[in-house]
């Protein structure tokens, strides 16, 4: 249990520290970024160390963390570990793409959301779980406010609204469900003085509660008619923050909602055909409509947003089933959804950054220039749908068959594959003749040694260094040339043209001052360390094109492993929720 507490503490400290540092710039930003990255790494390691034993329904009071308020379990371990691993890769891509500015907002938001999500998944009380899921949702605002730009206030407004509305609905439903269940049991139980009666009004109330829970999750996942938020969010947020905002943050709330259904509604086995049909109809319409929208959409971010909505809608089938058997498949699908959509969104973000366009038609020929990215998209597509025998494929089938009878289950399964043409469109488009946007982008090729990253720049009046030192070359070489290690360590961004030369001058002057004032041995060690870090940074930036693609491929492979069912995902998802026995869970 101390592992869980340590995870929460380090995550919270990392979130606060990185938010504080990254908002200030300069040395504080570098410290914040390094601290946040280290915290993320430690969280990932600690997550694998969490207790994975199934939670006992009769856990004694006082067990676990915070007087039994939190309890680790196998599902929590898998979700947090995968979330942290994905976050590390996404953060790495963000840093390669935009330097420290690229991780501003993303890093603290990710850590805060992981902490909130961990509490939500470990909570032994439904109210605490719902409240923590709301707190995890609020982390989205950190990423949005840091991104700034036009429309961020409106996007933050919508995120705040759904972040709090969902938990409010779940808390109310979780409080009312035991009372309604009591009345239902009164109505259906055989009275000694008379025959048993139907569930009556209390049964209708239970159906209403089921719809309330479904509403909370539908709003969060952006199911139609609540989908308008998603493309606008995609416009306002940083592309690499979207995996967090669209794929991971919905997980805690969804799990808590499924928890209420599994613990309080499904065991009563009441006939709720009307409610089930309504939810299934909404899911079916969402699957078909978003698949069509994604296929027709020419804006890459919007198209990917619709792909995310389509897969998120499948979670609602776990609620519509109102069956305890749907607990495991629904939670399995949630992990698969998050992992596969993270890979797809990361692919989209890297493609947009590399080819400098969001227009899908302008991406024609991308696959020829980016084979690693192409492999990533293929693997992510396979992870999204799975193949027979994989957890993802089985979850799709199980959820459909539990939520709807024949032939609607077959239709739901087919509708779930309706997004496949969009993936194929993106892949086929990539094999065509390259557009100018694609042609001018850096190709993926590993080059050992020196590689020019910018054209030589002549700068008048800058032939001498700023401190009056010896003359520099009149024609500055391209960024990334040898001897720039200290400068690159000092700066946040890659060098470009004259700005880079000034940075070099400043860094060299700073290095000389440091060398002059420090003791010889210490300065020597520091200089060696700085050179080492500089060389590493330079090497990573030099091969940034390939490294970003490789990171996306790694995300896709992680998604494929998840979809396959590595680490017994299906078993962990089927474990009981850590809700201890009590009056509310009878």
């Amino acid at each position, binding site marked *: 249990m101390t592992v869980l507490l340590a995870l929460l503490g380090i995550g919270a400290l990392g979130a606060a520290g990185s938010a504080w540092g990254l908002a200030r710039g300069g040395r504080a930003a570098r410290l914040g970024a390094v601290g946040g990255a280290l915290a993320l790494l430690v969280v990932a390691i600690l997550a694998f160390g969490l207790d994975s034993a199934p939670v006992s329904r009769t856990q004694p009071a006082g067990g676990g963390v*915070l*007087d039994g*308020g*939190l309890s680790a379990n196998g599902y929590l371990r898998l979700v947090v570990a995968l979330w942290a691993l994905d976050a590390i890769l996404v953060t790495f891509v963000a840093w390669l793409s935009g330097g420290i500015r690229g991780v501003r907002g993303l890093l603290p938001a990710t850590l805060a959301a992981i902490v909130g999500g961990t*509490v939500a998944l470990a909570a032994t*009380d439904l*109210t*605490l779980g719902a*409240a*923590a899921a709301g*707190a995890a949702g*609020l982390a989205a*605002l950190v990423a949005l406010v840091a991104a700034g730009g*036009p*429309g*961020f*206030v*409106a*996007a*933050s*407004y919508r995120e*705040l*609204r759904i972040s*709090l509305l969902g*938990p*409010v609905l779940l*808390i*109310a439903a*979780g*409080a*009312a469900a*035991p*009372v309604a*269940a*009591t*009345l239902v*049991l*009164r109505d259906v139980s055989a009275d000694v003085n008379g025959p048993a009666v139907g569930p009556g009004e209390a049964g209708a109330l239970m159906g209403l509660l089921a719809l309330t829970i479904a509403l909370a999750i539908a709003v969060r996942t952006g199911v139609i008619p609540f989908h308008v938020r998603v493309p*606008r969010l995609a*416009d*306002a947020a940083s592309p690499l923050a979207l995996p967090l905002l669209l794929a991971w943050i919905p997980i805690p709330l969804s799990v808590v909602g499924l928890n209420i259904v599994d613990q309080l509604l499904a065991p009563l086995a009441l006939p709720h055909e009307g409610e089930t049909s309504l939810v299934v109809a909404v899911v079916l319409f969402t699957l078909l409509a978003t698949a069509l929208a994604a296929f027709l959409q*020419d*804006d890459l971010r*919007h198209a990917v947003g619709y792909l995310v909505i389509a897969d998120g809608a499948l979670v609602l089938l776990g609620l519509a089933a109102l069956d305890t058997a749907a607990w495991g498949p629904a939670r399995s699908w949630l992990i698969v959804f998050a992992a596969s959509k993270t890979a797809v969104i990361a692919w989209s973000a890297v493609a947009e950054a590399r080819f*400098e*366009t*969001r*227009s899908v038609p302008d991406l024609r020929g991308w696959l020829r220039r980016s084979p690693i990215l192409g492999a990533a998209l293929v693997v992510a597509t396979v992870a999204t749908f799975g193949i027979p025998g994989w957890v993802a494929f089985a979850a799709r089938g199980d959820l459909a068959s539990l939520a709807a009878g024949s032939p609607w289950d077959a239709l739901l399964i087919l509708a779930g594959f309706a997004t496949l043409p969009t993936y194929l469109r993106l892949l086929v488009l990539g094999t065509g003749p390259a557009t*100018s*946007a694609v042609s*001018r982008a850096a190709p993926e090729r590993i080059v050992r040694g020196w590689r020019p990253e910018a*054209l030589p*720049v002549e700068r008048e009046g800058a032939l001498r260094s700023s401190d009056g030192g010896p003359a520099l070359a009149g024609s500055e070489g391209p960024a990334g040339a040898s001897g720039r290690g200290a400068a690159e360590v000092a700066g946040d961004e890659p060098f*470009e*043209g*004259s700005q880079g030369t000034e940075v070099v001058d400043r860094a060299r002057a700073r290095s000389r001052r440091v060398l002059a004032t420090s003791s010889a041995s210490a300065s020597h060690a520091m200089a060696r360390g700085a050179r080492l870090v500089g060389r590493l940074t330079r090497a990573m930036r030099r091969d940034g094109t390939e490294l970003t693609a490789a990171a996306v491929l790694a995300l896709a492979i992680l998604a494929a492993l998840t979809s396959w069912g590595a680490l017994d995902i299906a078993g962990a998802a089927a474990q009981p929720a850590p809700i201890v026995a*009590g*009056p*509310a869970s*009878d």
Partner: protein
Amino acid sequence: MTATLAAVAVLVAGGGIVAVSAREPRLAALGTLVVLVGSGYVADPLPEAVALAARLTGAVLAGYLIWVALRRPGALTAGWQIGWPGATVIAVAAFAAGWLAAGALGTELAGLTGEGPSAAGVATALASGSPVPRAAIGAAAVLIALAAAPVLVARDVLRMGIGLLLLVSAADLVRHALAAGSDPVVELGLAVVIALSGAAVAALVSASLRTHGDLQLRTGAGRGAPVRHRSADEAHPRRIRSDDAA
């Protein structure tokens, strides 16, 4: 004691009226603070002292952060168009409806206590006829009725945020009324979430004032899709780099 707690529920409802109808933003923030603080105390039995202290701290922190965010010039809100008399009428009706509904539910549960497998421990205070859970349900109904419009249709960042905080308090009141008791860990968690929610509302208000100079929501600015609005010279958009400019 129960009469005092029921009076706190009425105070919470009054705070809700002020929060949604006041035209002075800081007065609205004050009403929100009353709601956030009071809603933690309308419970029978009362939570432990530590839990109450945590709730008080979280609520005060949330209210204070909103108060601070409203220091900037331009923080003007239109309030609710129906004004405080209209809001009061809605609140009275909602409170009466909530009180009566809770009474009916309590009567239903009173006949069950101890008979069914789940009867014991569910809404015990309500089943025993205590006025506190009835007042809590009444106050929750008031907050839901008052917050619905700001949350669903308001174009004012502050009003929407206040509406959300009222809904959080309403959910808490419902939980207090229907649950058997309260766990200190849960109260602590709720206190943290209330403080974070207040911070989020304050951040949004501050961002709106900094960006637009007022609290009005502008959604059009976010539609900068490069595909839909592309001019002729942007056939192949690319960023201008410093070396290009040189």
